[in-house]
């Protein structure tokens, strides 16, 4: 599967290994290995089918097709595709999980909690 092409999409190919803090102000497609932390506050992170991410993630949206180990804070939505293997807690407003995806961790829908609190 090839990465979607876009002028505003940064890509990390499957032979690339990155260790450290990764931040940016554009969408990011990771098909390689990232270890550390990823902060894309108003943008979308996609972990491709070959992607192996060991990092805490903060983004607007997250799509996982590969492996992700770390806690996730997504202000808008999270999508776990059928090949996703995720270990970590997920806090977001909306989540969709395809049949076959694997999740070990907590799902916390924050919008609902806000409603329950009367906000």
């Amino acid at each position, binding site marked *: 599967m090839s990465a979607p092409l876009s002028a505003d999409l940064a890509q990390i190919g499957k032979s690339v290994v990155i260790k450290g803090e990764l931040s940016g102000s554009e969408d990011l497609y990771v098909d390689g290995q990232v270890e550390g932390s990823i902060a894309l506050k108003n943008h979308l992170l996609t972990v491709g089918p070959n992607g192996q991410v060991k990092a805490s993630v903060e983004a607007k949206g997250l799509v996982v097709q590969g492996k992700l180990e770390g806690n996730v804070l997504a202000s808008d939505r999270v999508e776990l595709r059928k090949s996703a293997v995720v270990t970590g807690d997920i806090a977001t407003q909306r*989540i*969709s*999980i*395809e*049949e*076959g*995806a*694997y*999740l*070990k*961790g*907590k*799902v*916390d*829908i924050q919008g*609902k*909690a806000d*409603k*329950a609190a009367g906000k």
Partner: protein
Amino acid sequence: MASVTQNFMKLFRGSSGGAQAETPQPAQKLARRSSGLGELLRLWDSETPLCVLDLGSTSPANIRFFTERGHKIYSEDLLVASTEPHLVTKDELGNLVLDSRKFLAENLQYPAAHFDVVLCWNLPDYLDESLVRPVMGRLWSVLKPGGMLLAFFHTKDAGPDSPCYRFHIVEKDVLEMQRIVLRREARRGPTGAIHTAIGDGFRLQRVFNNRHIETLFRDFASIKFFLARDNVREVLVVR
């Protein structure tokens, strides 16, 4: 109790008789009413967000069911986790067993008294013998006092090839059962040595009788049995 259970398991594994459970195709889903789940019904409407631990295969339906109601759901597939090859070790008699300490160091890592509800489903029937009691002990400790655990146990009429299902909550007291098809990674586990996994699913390890179940949950405050029509007893225990 362990030796009694082990002897029973030997008999059980050696038997070829017994009623064969209906074996659906992997994609097929069967609906069943769950009295145990129905007993939990009043909890789901709680204004206070609950912490629910689902120990079955990751179920989008279950995650949706609880998050729509404002609850927090934790998903952890212990059966798949038990197939990790590095867990295999030998006991003092040289028998291959799973290392329960290592297993608990890597799984069920939660603060004490954290969960309101644990959905155990059919885990005790399919989990390797060396893990059953340690896992139940850990589940007791992570449940809040007054918290509830729901587990399903086959009756003696179930055959050793009874398929292992994953459970999706579709209504407050209705489950959809879907036969588990292991991911390729999971099949690389210690299947030959400890018979945890076979072919495209997990193998029934034992059948608990009521006394065994009561012993298994002896640290809990109360236990309630519901006999279903499909060779399954539903058990609801309260810490």
